[in-house]
């Protein structure tokens, strides 16, 4: 079982996502929550970072946090899946542990 990483900070303000992706093992799951969801959007300066990560880890976005901020799933980079709160729980259950990047 692998690790579920959660990132709740904007990639434009903190280096939480960059640090997470630097050490996340291949096959790990990375769930973007709260202000972390901005990293999943198309056309941003974080695209090279996230695109490179998508080849190694699975990236998810928490739907309610994306919707709260005014963005539809269509604005996300291809390869990123949207999960709801039940999906968050499911990912946590499937993982050996949950590591939060605050």
């Amino acid at each position, binding site marked *: 079982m692998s690790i579920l990483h959660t990132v709740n900070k904007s990639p*434009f*303000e903190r280096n939480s996502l960059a640090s997470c992706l630097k050490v996340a093992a291949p096959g790990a799951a990375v769930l973007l929550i709260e202000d972390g969801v*901005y990293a999943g959007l198309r056309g941003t300066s974080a695209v090279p970072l996230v695109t490179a990560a998508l080849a190694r880890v699975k990236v998810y976005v928490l739907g*309610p946090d994306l919707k*709260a901020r005014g963005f539809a799933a269509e604005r996300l980079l291809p390869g990123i899946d949207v999960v709801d709160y039940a999906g968050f729980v499911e990912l946590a259950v499937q993982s050996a542990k949950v590591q939060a990047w605050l």
Partner: protein
Amino acid sequence: MSETIKKFLYLNRKAPYGTVYAWESLEVVLIGAAFDQEVSLLFMDDGVYQLIKGQDPSGIGMKNFSPTYRTLGDYEVKSIFVDGESLTARGLMPDDLMRIAWDDPDTQETVENIVTVVDAPRVTALMDAADVVFSF
């Protein structure tokens, strides 16, 4: 009461919901409207996310304060500036932002949108022209 009208500039650099800065800034702007001042708002860095259209935080149990931005014209806010480079870095277009109207009490005319995208030299000039800058 002083007759002196000062230029207030509110600088907003935080995304909404993740922290309380955006909501706090809005509250101060609304309270400050009770005083007769010339008020401008500037959104840069993650602060540009505050103006994104169609916000709906019902699913995260938070209050949707974004419609309040559209009423700012009623609170003495005559101009709202958005840093263009901050939009570009986030893959955003001016069309992603909400439109905010303002009714000129002197001419009775309505300015359809007081949101203006500006470049860095303009931001410098805005800060230079302000008497007070409030940072959030």
